[in-house]
């Protein structure tokens, strides 16, 4: 839930819960994140919560991605300054 809400707040776009879980599962299979089940709570209808945490290789992949994004962003023209 928290992951999805974070995505929605930061990206200012809606994200379906199914798409978030599918992506997290793919990242987990690649070894970029790990997950573990928590305890079941009444508010969740007796269902356990899954906690995700980023791995070292996940952090590295994220940094690589950010560097690439910055390089690509440098090619974009600067926004015109107001006079």
């Amino acid at each position: 839930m928290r992951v999805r809400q974070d995505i929605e707040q930061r990206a200012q776009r809606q994200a379906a819960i199914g798409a978030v879980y599918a992506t997290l599962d793919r990242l987990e299979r690649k070894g970029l994140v790990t997950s573990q089940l928590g305890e079941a709570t009444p508010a969740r209808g007796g269902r356990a919560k899954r906690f995700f945490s980023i791995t070292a290789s996940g952090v590295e992949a994220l940094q690589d991605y950010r560097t690439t994004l910055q390089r690509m962003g440098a090619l974009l023209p600067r926004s015109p300054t107001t006079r």
Partner: protein
Amino acid sequence: MFRLGGIYVALVATTLLIVGGLTLQSARNEAASQINAQMLALSRSFQYRVGDLASSQVASGQDVTTTIVSETVNFLENIPTSSGQIVYVSLKNGSSTFSPKANTSATASLERLVGNSGRRWLTVHPRRGDSMRVLRVPFQASDGSVRGTLTIGMPQSTLDIGLLKSLALGSGIALALAILIGLAWIRRVVASIQSLSSRIEPIRLERDPTASHARNLSPTHNHDLPPMLAEKLILLCTPPSQAQPLIGDLREEFSRFMLPQYGGRFARLWYWKQAFSSMPPLLQWRLTRFLYLGWLLDSVSRWLKGG
């Protein structure tokens, strides 16, 4: 599971029994027609060879009865008879001749038919031994006068036992295969149903006011719960290992944020929206996991990167 398996086994066994019975009956009819044709051919051969020879010898002045008897014996000694086949010739003067290979039980049954001038085709059931197909043909001399009766008998047991053995073997193998395949299939289907039931059961218990679990899980009313159909839809599309956390997340957000903030109607609409918008990625996720496409794509990309 066991009840379903038992019903399946009973159905397969009954079907095989019916099919086997029909096949046996059809095979018996076919065999009977072959036996009839064989016996008819033998009777024609007898009429042709013995009748003509007797006529030619009578014309040369020999005694007709003596000639017929000697030619009959000669015919019976030389014809190739099948296993258990009996040829019995009785003449009007009381003399009779059996083929050399005839056994006493069968000949006794045939002897009882001598005085019977009724049906041409008969099926004899002796007190001991197997049933026998019998053909009785009046034996005529060349002048058209009836000189006696030719009786041909052939036991049906040998053919039936062979057919029964083949059918029993085939049916047994088919039955064993059908049971193995069917039980494996039933086990798989039942396991799927049980898996789905175990995932749906908490939802049902939660909504059932008589269930004791419901009070422990949530104190809310039914109209404050998310739509059950939408939950089932998500459960159907989600891989089983991930279904419970996903539904739990939706439930928590529904009850903690959406319901108090926007009310029941909007919260339920929001839940339906989540269900519908989650279906395409969930189905794709499930399909990918099923086909191991993710593993394949990862391997290919690693290979391309040289890793």
